[in-house]
């Protein structure tokens, strides 16, 4: 292996020892030198190994390679089982964020029971994300860095199928889609 410079070794040790994923800024509080270059070097060093260095949002951490899941999987410690309502609500928040409760309910066609958002927030995947400046100033919700980390997403752009859904207009409100369809019909006439 080619010799490592001190910054690369330091960042490697730091991320290895850290209890939580770290941002570049938080790493800089510990390590001198070019942290970003060190991360690039480590990502390539660990590519293909049993451990990988991954970026989740603004945070970095080491984790085991996905293809080894069959060896390591711990079914019994299964991360909390979400109800169907919980899964759908989480997906709607992730694909539409920031999104109000009323918007979530409009998509699901049913009221959200009180516990559903609580469970998602308790899991650390969803957070309140400010109020929308419309009458009533409703609270909006968005996903957290822990959500990205848990589902192995580098950014929200990695959400499965998000580009196709956006292109198909399926992330737009129904009203907007109806308007568009009407316009299109008029053009075709």
């Amino acid at each position: 292996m080619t010799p490592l410079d001190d910054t690369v070794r330091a960042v490697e040790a730091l991320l290895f020892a850290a209890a939580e994923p770290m941002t570049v800024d938080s790493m800089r509080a510990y390590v001198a030198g070019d942290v970003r270059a060190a991360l690039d070097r480590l990502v390539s060093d660990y590519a293909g190994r049993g451990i990988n260095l991954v970026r989740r949002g603004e945070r970095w951490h080491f984790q085991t390679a996905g293809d080894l899941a069959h060896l390591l999987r711990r079914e019994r410690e299964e991360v909390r089982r979400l109800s169907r309502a919980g899964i759908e609500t989480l997906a709607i928040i992730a694909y539409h964020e920031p999104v109000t409760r009323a918007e979530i309910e409009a998509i699901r066609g049913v009221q959200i029971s009180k516990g559903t958002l609580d469970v998602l927030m308790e899991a650390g995947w969803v957070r309140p994300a400010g109020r929308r400046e419309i009458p009533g100033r409703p609270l909006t919700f968005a996903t957290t860095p822990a959500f990205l980390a848990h589902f192995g997403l580098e950014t929200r752009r990695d959400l499965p199928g998000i580009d196709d859904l956006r292109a198909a207009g399926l992330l737009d409100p129904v009203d907007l889609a109806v308007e568009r369809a009407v316009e299109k019909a008029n053009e075709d006439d």
Partner: protein
Amino acid sequence: MTGEQLTLDLDGWEGPLDLLLNLARAQKVDLTRISILALVEQYLGYVERARTLQLELAADYLVMAAWLAYLKSALLLPRDPVADADPEELALRLQLRLERLAAMREAGARLMARDRLGRDVFRRAAAEGLRTIRTPRWSAEIYDLIAGYGRVSARTRPVMHVVQDRAVMTLDAAIARVAAMVGSHVSWTAIERFLPDDATGAFRRSALASSFLAALELARQGRVELQQAAPFAPLYLRAPA
């Protein structure tokens, strides 16, 4: 279908839109090509069956049924283009809602199937953790210091004044004095007679109070007898017989 099964079925739906989506899936065509009319018929039939079995349906299922009944009549009957909403647009609206719910349902499933941290991939279990050592740097201003001393001085100084300036007769002195004097008084003698002749003002009050306590203490020891006719009446002392 038994009533019980139907109840369970209804419990399994996440609301009327969910029920509609599942009925639409049964048409086994792309959601963009479903027959809205057939879907409406199926939904209304479902709700009707629930009613004949006298099952309690949540209000939103009935609201949806009413809306779908209206949609059905709009689709079937000739319409007044001024007064009535465009039934094609209403049908499109329903179809768009179903597509959106289906899209999110599928997205949720794909999300859950990813390699999830703590189930499929793992962070280091025995991470040492990083430590921040906080070293306090104490701060205070010279004003705080001086004002603090002023506070302490003000708190303790008046007490020192009082103790130095006030003339008092201590309890020990009063016991010694009363014990010495009572020996020469075999007849009842008022307590005031035991005070120093020159005692006036605050010192006299102090001497009286201390002498009274001294009298009580000496009586307890059997070295003096006390007599008082009534509360606040003159107090007399004499040597024990």
